[in-house]
């Protein structure tokens, strides 16, 4: 790690999701030195977990591959995975970041042959699939993982399994003695792109996410469509593996609600409209989708997509925030109770599967943030002079879809470039 060169003209990008990758590429491709700090074992973030993008319904893997190639080809970018910024001191043009790098127990000799995974038996929750299934103790985070290098779960260390993995490796890539490292890096500007996390659905007590098997979140639903996901691409419900043809989407699950997240998460309406097409994709005319909403927020060009879904006879829109969900014990169907706003009709509707269009919570914690930062009531980083040379990108700055996150990241890269340019001028 000591071979990393970082100066006051380096841009530190915290977070290697779509925003962090974009900011890093924009800065590096105009010749700036960039270091990307990524918490997980691979870059790409939540975009790697999406089946399709809205509104074009193309596969994110495509754009992700382009970005990964750009990163691999650019000598100005250094990526540190399994790394976290634990401290940040200094001011614009002169920062020192403390970075904790966790052991991967696999070095660069790894060819991703998978022999270690075949050798071990222990299994751990698969975070890539929101813990809906398990992966082996030696694993590749997902098919498109960059770096394409296996990881040994820290829970394996000291077990016979770990030794089996090491013995199975023909390339001497497994190093079970790898230790956690703490390094210090200089930087002139920091792009903070730590993204978002789905709001904790258990907190929305009336919807019973914690007690009804067939109530899942939108991010989990997305994983069901992946051929390499927990259901191998089959749209089936968790309780009994039955095909989920009659699917209800509940909008504003955790968003626009002073009991949960105050803000509109912006992506959920379009996500549900998009996911309604997944049900049609799988079951054709047997698809029976209901979308429960307060109002559909499909702005600008997204309105065309909304109209297309409205024209689909298999999709019903019900203007109502569902009051509560109970389970029909006989068949496991969730039953949705509420009153609609178009006629004030009381309903108790049964569905095969309920998808909570879960809200977007920023992964910024003001109390533990390593340096003084302006955070708004919703928990996002404000664009403020008090932040000095720290610029929020993507979902650290607001609830954004991928398109707008990329725009935000580009803007942050430009701001960071201006700071390091000033340093360069001063240093001559």
């Amino acid at each position, binding site marked *: 790690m000591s071979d990393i060169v970082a100066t006051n003209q380096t841009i530190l990008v915290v977070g290697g999701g779509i925003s962090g990758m974009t900011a890093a590429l924009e800065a590096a491709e105009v010749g700036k030195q960039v270091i990307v700090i990524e918490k997980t074992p691979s870059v790409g973030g939540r975009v790697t977990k999406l089946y399709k993008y809205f509104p074009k319904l193309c596969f994110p893997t495509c754009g992700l591959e382009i970005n990964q190639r750009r990163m691999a080809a650019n000598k100005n970018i250094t990526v540190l995975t399994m790394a976290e910024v634990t401290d940040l001191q200094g001011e614009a043009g002169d920062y020192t970041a403390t970075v904790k790098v966790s052991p991967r127990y696999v070095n660069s000799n790894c060819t991703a042959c998978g022999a270690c995974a075949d050798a071990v038996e222990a299994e751990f929750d698969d975070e890539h699939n929101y813990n809906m299934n398990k992966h082996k103790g030696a694993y590749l985070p997902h098919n498109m993982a960059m770096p394409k290098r296996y990881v040994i779960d820290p829970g394996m260390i000291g077990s016979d399994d770990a030794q089996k993995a090491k013995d199975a490796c023909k390339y001497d890539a497994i190093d079970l003695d790898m230790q956690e490292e703490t390094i210090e890096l200089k930087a002139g500007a920091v792009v903070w792109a730590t993204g978002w996390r789905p709001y904790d659905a258990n907190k929305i007590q009336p919807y019973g996410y914690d007690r009804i098997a067939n109530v899942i979140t939108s991010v989990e639903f997305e994983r069901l469509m992946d051929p390499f996901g927990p259901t191998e691409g089959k749209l089936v419900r968790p309780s009994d593996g039955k095909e989920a043809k009659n699917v209800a989407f509940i909008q504003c699950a955790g968003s626009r*609600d002073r009991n949960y997240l105050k803000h509109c998460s912006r992506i959920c309406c379009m996500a549900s409209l998009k996911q309604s097409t997944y049900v049609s994709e799988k079951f054709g005319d047997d698809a029976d989708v209901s979308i429960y909403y*307060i109002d559909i927020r499909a702005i600008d060009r997204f309105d065309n997509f909304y109209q297309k879904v409205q024209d689909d006879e298999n999709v019903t829109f019900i203007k109502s*925030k569902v*009051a*509560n969900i109970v389970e029909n014990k006989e068949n496991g169907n969730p039953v949705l109770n*509420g009153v609609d*706003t178009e006629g*004030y009709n*009381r309903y108790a509707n049964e569905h095969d599967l309920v998808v909570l269009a879960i809200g977007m919570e920023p992964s910024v914690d003001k109390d533990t943030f390593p340096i003084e930062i302006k955070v708004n009531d919703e928990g996002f980083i404000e664009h403020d002079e008090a932040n000095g040379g720290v610029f929020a990108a993507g979902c650290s700055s607001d609830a954004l879809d991928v398109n707008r996150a990329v725009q935000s990241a580009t803007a942050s890269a430009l701001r960071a470039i201006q700071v390091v340019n000033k340093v360069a001028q001063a240093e001559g």
Partner: protein
Amino acid sequence: MSDLNTGMVEKYRNNFLKEVEANVEEGDWVKMCMQCGVCSGSCPLGTDWDHPPQELFMMIRAGKREEVLQSTSMWMCTSCYNCIVRCPRELPITHIMHGLAHYATRLGIEPKGQPTRQFAQLFWDNLAKNGRVNELWLGVNLYFMNGLVEGVKVALGMAGIGLGMLKAGRLSLKELVGGHTVKDKKGFKAMIKKAQELEAARVDNAQ
């Protein structure tokens, strides 16, 4: 009270929302409703309401003055607070419901013979007498609310519970004459009188 009603109709002609904001307890929250309907769906007595809260809020904005104020709906509220807890905009819905009911009563246009309304009046009259609720008389008055024959029937039906409460010391026959009072009954009466004066002055000002 009907003069007050005429006066209010005159003052707020075609703007019932403003009338509610100025005169109903917590009425200025009504405009914050975004019609999601979670209150209506969460109400345990929802099926007994002609117009659930969400609909009442829309009717207020639509200027349906008589239909709202003469409705029995808000009298169905049992103050369980489920709607307040779940409202995404934290509207004090329970309080608004009671505020609407109270305002309709002040105007003298509340639904006559509505049982909750009658019980509320019995409760108030009972409480205002001694500053303490006389449960025995409250029960008796409640049983005979709908006439003598009905009252005897209800009283006989409840006899078992009444005797049980007597035995357990939860009910005292001493309450039949006089009953227990607050320590400073005179002060209590003066306080109520003053409050009523203030309220009357406020209503006069609003007119």
